[in-house]
């Protein structure tokens, strides 16, 4: 069985039938509940998140619990399935705290390895879609900078800036020098001050704690690797969101340039434009391989995971931004309007390029991992 052994060692870069089924379910839900006009109306309201959408996605479909084992109330699936959900969320730029709650916060809690007590209890609530939790760290925090997440020291006093999805959270997971605390978002001494974000589909807030109280979930020694693991999963699966986003941009651009006529021809027949879209297609195809590789590494616990994640982030964030920029340019004037959704994708792509480590910080990680040191 030589050949088969080789197969199991290589990452599985394809989609399984179950993953394809999950994709169709999520895609049709988002088409119904979160089309572009709905998203634009939402971001102009005070609550970008639609609690009904979150209930349908997180609880009814069970997407919130994909990473959580069945004995803790989850679906017992893996990062591969969660990645497929994120591809679809990227494709629709739906405002939903999936990456922050169902991936980063969930993965951080899972890494603590508790089978009962407050951690297991909270995981059950998250998996059922009844609660949303976010890790109280600045959104740009790279996995290898996880200790920079400890902005809060001693008793729960301190300020954490630019926390993604904090406004939607029921529970804040607060890393401190003492360890990791769970703090109820509406507890005394907790304020969540919304910021005006570049990406309106993923709100940011400043979290301020003033003699707040919380439950200690893990001491500092256990908390640090758990936070790092949460951020690693976030960075790795963000690549799938970026892939879905880039795919939407390419598909819409191809559709538009086939229909839009100038100079008595569809503008998509001009070689200058065709080559740009073909180049983008090649980038999307490559991004898919990189994103699948990261998801598969996270799912299989491969020792290659930090490299797979860094490669996926260093590559996919650029592809998403490039796709969104090309989408706007090739749509011409319509691409600059508020009513066309292209701007939502550009804003998401650009913010994603900073989230969980920039491409540059992931390149530094690769330099370290592959022994290609700076001068």
């Amino acid at each position, binding site marked *: 069985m030589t050949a088969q052994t080789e197969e199991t060692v290589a990452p599985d870069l394809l989609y399984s039938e179950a993953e394809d089924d999950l994709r169709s379910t999520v895609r049709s839900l988002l088409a119904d509940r979160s089309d572009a006009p709905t998203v634009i109306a939402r971001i102009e309201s005070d609550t970008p998140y639609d609690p009904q959408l979150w209930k349908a996605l997180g609880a009814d479909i069970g997407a919130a619990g994909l990473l959580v084992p069945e004995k803790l109330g989850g679906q017992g699936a893996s990062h591969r399935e969660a990645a497929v959900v994120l591809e679809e969320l990227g494709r629709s730029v739906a405002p939903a705290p999936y990456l922050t709650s169902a991936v980063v916060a969930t993965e951080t809690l899972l890494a603590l390895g508790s089978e009962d007590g407050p951690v297991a209890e909270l995981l059950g609530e998250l998996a059922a879609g009844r609660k949303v939790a976010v890790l109280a760290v600045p959104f740009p925090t790279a996995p290898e900078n996880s200790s920079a997440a400890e902005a809060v020291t001693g008793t729960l006093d301190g300020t954490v800036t630019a926390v993604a999805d904090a406004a939607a959270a029921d529970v804040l997971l607060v890393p401190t020098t003492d360890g990791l605390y769970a703090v109820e978002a509406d507890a005394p001494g907790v304020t969540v001050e919304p910021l005006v974000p570049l990406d309106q589909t993923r709100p940011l807030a400043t979290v301020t704690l003033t003699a707040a109280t919380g439950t200690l979930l893990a001491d500092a020694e256990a908390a640090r690797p758990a936070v790092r693991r949460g951020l690693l999963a976030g960075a790795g699966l963000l690549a799938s969101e970026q892939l879905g986003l880039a795919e939407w941009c390419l598909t819409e651009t191809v559709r538009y340039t086939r229909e839009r006529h100038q100079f008595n021809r569809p503008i998509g027949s001009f070689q200058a434009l065709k080559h740009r879209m073909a180049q983008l297609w090649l980038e999307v*195809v490559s991004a898919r391989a990189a994103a699948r590789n990261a998801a598969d590494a996270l799912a299989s616990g491969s020792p290659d995971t930090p490299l797979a994640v860094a490669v996926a982030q260093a590559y996919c964030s650029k592809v998403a931004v490039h796709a969104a920029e090309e989408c706007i340019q090739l749509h011409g004037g319509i691409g600059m309007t508020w009513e066309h959704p292209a701007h939502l994708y550009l804003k998401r792509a650009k913010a994603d390029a900073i989230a969980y480590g920039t491409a540059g910080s992931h*390149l530094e990680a690769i330099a370290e991992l592959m022994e290609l040191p700076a001068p």
Partner: protein
Amino acid sequence: MTTIDAAELRRRTRELLAAHPPATTGRTDFLRARFDAGLAWVHYPAGLGGLDAPRSLQPVVDAELAAAGAPDNDPRRIGIGLGMAAPTILGFGTDEQKQRFLRPLWVGEEVWCQLFSEPGAGSDLAALGTRAVREEADGDWIVDGQKVWTSSAHVARWAILIARTDPDLPKHRGISYFICDMTDPGVEVRPLRQITGEAEFNEVFLTGVRIPDSRRLGPVGAGWKVAQTTLMNERVSIGGSRIPREGGMIGPVARTWRERPELRTHDLHQRLLTLWVEAEVARLAGERLRQQLVAGQPGPEGSGMKLAFARLNQEISGLEVELLGEEGLLYSDWTMRRPDLVDFTGRDAGYRYLRSKGNSIEGGTSEVLLNIVAERVLGLPAEPRNDKDVAWKDLSR
């Protein structure tokens, strides 16, 4: 019909090894025996070197033979025959042609070349002007014209050739496909020295070359369709094998970086890391394509991989020359040689840099491939054309 699985292939491979121990069997004899056992290309029909087995099982045989130290058929040296001539002969050849040509082709006793491109027909291949005129007396074809960029013509025994058999038809329709004997009178091969100093390519002049009708592949006038099979197979060959990390051109550069700290600069570091990531991602995309083929769901990604590798090879080899600094100013040897095979990665950084310039031209320029992706994969409209319904002889050239 029996289904051939991995276990059965392994059993047959061991049987072959037992009957013809590599240690005591001559190279050619072993390869012939392997062909006759159906273990040459297992997806080919029985009797023609295969067993009608799934293509994805070939690695089972290859791994078993490699472990036993058996000789291989030097696929690099016979690449054009394997990748282009063989699938075309299999698809369009008569039984006689298949029996005559496939075994010596695979064993490597007969090397093939490809007489497609012409000085006036490169990317616009269908514009070719080499004429094949049929003699009324015996039905033989008399061929006159000039071909160019012909790798291996100087060592080839046979060539696949496309020529115009009806100039009154539009350019795609009046073409026929032949097998040309490179030793026949009227075939003249002249080396074409190139940018690297080597003459890896040739010009081939065809003057009154007589080709019997029994060496025509496919119907008269169907040459363009037959050629499509050849060209598609040229690009399919990617994705057959698994490439290790740093397996391509990035490998030597990364090694130099690790071993020669004195060459490092911040600017080169940024470029190296960016290209390292792109090479790793291209490798993964190739691996994904391979997995799709194995799973029987071939995607259109193949058309894109050549584009990615062409650009990467050029950028990486360019970086390598700069990284080497003073050494990058030197070149190993400008002597004109006529190598047996195309070697992209051999020799030094300067050679790799110069040779890789061809990667975006040979086998379809990157611009033509981008058009193919745009039109066939993305479904974008074609540019308006004015050469489709005009007789070839009336086109301006």
